[in-house]
């Protein structure tokens, strides 16, 4: 029972992290039709920059801000300097992102070497919190509560806050309205007098910024090291294939399914854990090729 609850909570927190990474990926794709295979690189680079900033300023929150901001700027630069010039050429854009991810991975290896970096989050985030889940009763009648890492609870909360914030932003604000209109019909949005390139740059900034944010926040929960870029790229791919490319709600749902599946797989049949994830992806493709929340493409 304890294993089950712990696995469930681990699955939820992993889902929160996956959502943070995948929501940026899916947002960028939804509007710009750009499959950004350098998204994992943005995650890892955000983590490294956040680490440097946190180590320099001795403030973990400054590290989070630095990682997020730096990647948001990187995202705008990528959009303005590179992708803007090859709009509509989906394959070419994707090939460019592959090239960028190769160069980025190698340069990061050159700068930060193969070491594993660990963050130092503030003291109140380290340690465990007693959850109101009774495991057993001591002979004197006091309940034994389930301890759980505080940081992972923080991660879960961050995922929820960002998720709700993103939903409000897309559904309730003017820019969000423009983004939704652009997803449906980019040409019409352009024709109605809105500068699509500004909207594109904003969306790329949010998407890349989320990857950077996830890099620091997720890197604190686990660690940052070479290879994490591929890991989170795969997570993003599977999450959006299951949830539906282009849908933020789909990313949340997909992240929940994949996060839980991965943790339960790891806990109950360790060497075949990845197969479970894979089976879910295959099932999603077989029965709903456009993903759970994706719309059928014209």
């Amino acid at each position: 029972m304890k294993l089950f609850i712990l696995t469930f909570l681990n699955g939820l927190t992993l889902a929160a992290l996956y959502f943070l990474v995948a929501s940026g990926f899916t947002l960028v794709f939804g509007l710009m039709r750009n499959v950004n295979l350098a998204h994992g690189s943005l995650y890892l680079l955000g983590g490294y920059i956040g680490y440097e900033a946190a180590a320099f300023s001795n403030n973990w929150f400054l590290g989070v801000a630095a990682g997020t901001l730096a990647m948001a700027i990187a995202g705008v630069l990528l959009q303005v300097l590179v992708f803007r010039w090859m709009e509509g050429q989906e394959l070419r854009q994707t090939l460019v992102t592959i090239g960028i991810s190769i160069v980025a991975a190698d340069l990061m290896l050159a700068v930060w070497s193969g070491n594993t970096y660990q963050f130092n989050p503030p003291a109140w985030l380290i340690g465990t919190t007693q959850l109101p889940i009774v495991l057993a009763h001591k002979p004197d009648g006091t309940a034994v509560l389930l301890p759980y890492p505080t940081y992972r609870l923080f991660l879960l909360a961050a995922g929820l806050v960002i998720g709700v914030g993103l939903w409000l932003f897309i559904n309730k604000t003017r820019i969000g309205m423009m983004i939704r209109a652009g997803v449906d019909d980019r040409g019409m949005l352009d024709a109605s007098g809105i500068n699509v390139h500004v909207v594109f740059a904003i969306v790329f900034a949010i998407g890349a910024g989320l990857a950077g944010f996830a890099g620091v926040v997720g890197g604190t929960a686990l660690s940052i090291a070479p290879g994490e870029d591929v890991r989170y790229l795969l997570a993003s791919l599977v999450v959006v294939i299951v949830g539906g490319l282009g849908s933020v709600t789909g990313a949340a749902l997909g992240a929940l399914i994949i996060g839980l599946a991965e943790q339960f797989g790891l806990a109950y049949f360790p060497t075949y854990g990845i197969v479970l994830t894979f089976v879910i992806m295959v099932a999603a493709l077989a029965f709903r090729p456009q993903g759970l929340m994706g719309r059928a493409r014209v």
Partner: protein
Amino acid sequence: MTEAATTSPTASAPEAIPMSIVGHLIAVVLLLAFPFVATDFFTFQIGAYTLIMGTISLSLMLLAGYGGMVSLAQMSVAGLAGYMIAIFGTSAGGVALGWPWFLAIPAAVIIGTLLNVVVGLLAIRTEGIFTIVITLAIATALYYFAQQNYDIFNGHSGFSGVAPAHVLWVDWRAPKPFYFLSLAVAALSYAGVLYLSRTPFGLAMQAVRDNPRRMEAIGFNVPAHRIAAYAVAGLIASVAGVLLVWFDGGISPGSISVDRAIKVLIIAVVGGMRHPAGPFLGAILFVLLQNFAIDFVNPERFNTYIGLAFLLVVLVSPDGLLGLIRRLGAAPASGKSLP
């Protein structure tokens, strides 16, 4: 668009035939003479390796160039065939069933081909750019699976001591025999793909690439054509995968890493995906760079240079070196970019 699509691939062929025959003859002579003038290092490490990587990239070119389906799972297919050679045949590390070569090789090739059929069945559920997403997810999942699984794939360490059997009193791993073996496989695959592109099936494939809806409406079974293309590409990649495991002398999850899957794509894109010669051209450049870039630049940053070279080709000449050569030559190329 339709005008260009219907005339571009075949229209230039009739006048180009004499030129291409001359070119092919020169290539055959050079390739046959190569091991007799080159050192063993060049014959094995450069020559054979180029031919193997070129053949794996050729299988991608078949899918991407003629079918419009860019699959990143070709390295995984080659890798699975290699793993099967290690498991069915003789190897050190994990289970080795010790089958004779004439059973182990067909079994490995069949399993590799079947994997690509399964990949195809999944990938054709969606279209266009999603093929990359799905096949990359499959390739990455297989890599992590091979790394985690000890029952079949022997986990992180994989298999070692894999070598071809001595058949007909020849040591097939000696530089010259292995080179000619690789050359035979590469030449057969190359000729096969070239022939296939001119058969009714190949032409239908290219029509499906250009306009699947119209082909569907005319009455062609579009999914069946696509899966058949995956099967042929799987066959080519599997045979090349068998050669690759012999070349490496073993196999581990690193052999099917995302890094390597993307290198196959780089080779095909840099060479050009409009003609089967492209992947081999890309492979020559790639292998030469990999082996000799160390002499000019910091070897540790090899990936940076290869990535920048790839970016340059994608930005400057989307149809690769082949397109560049064609444009520099007398014949003006039709202005069609990547499929």
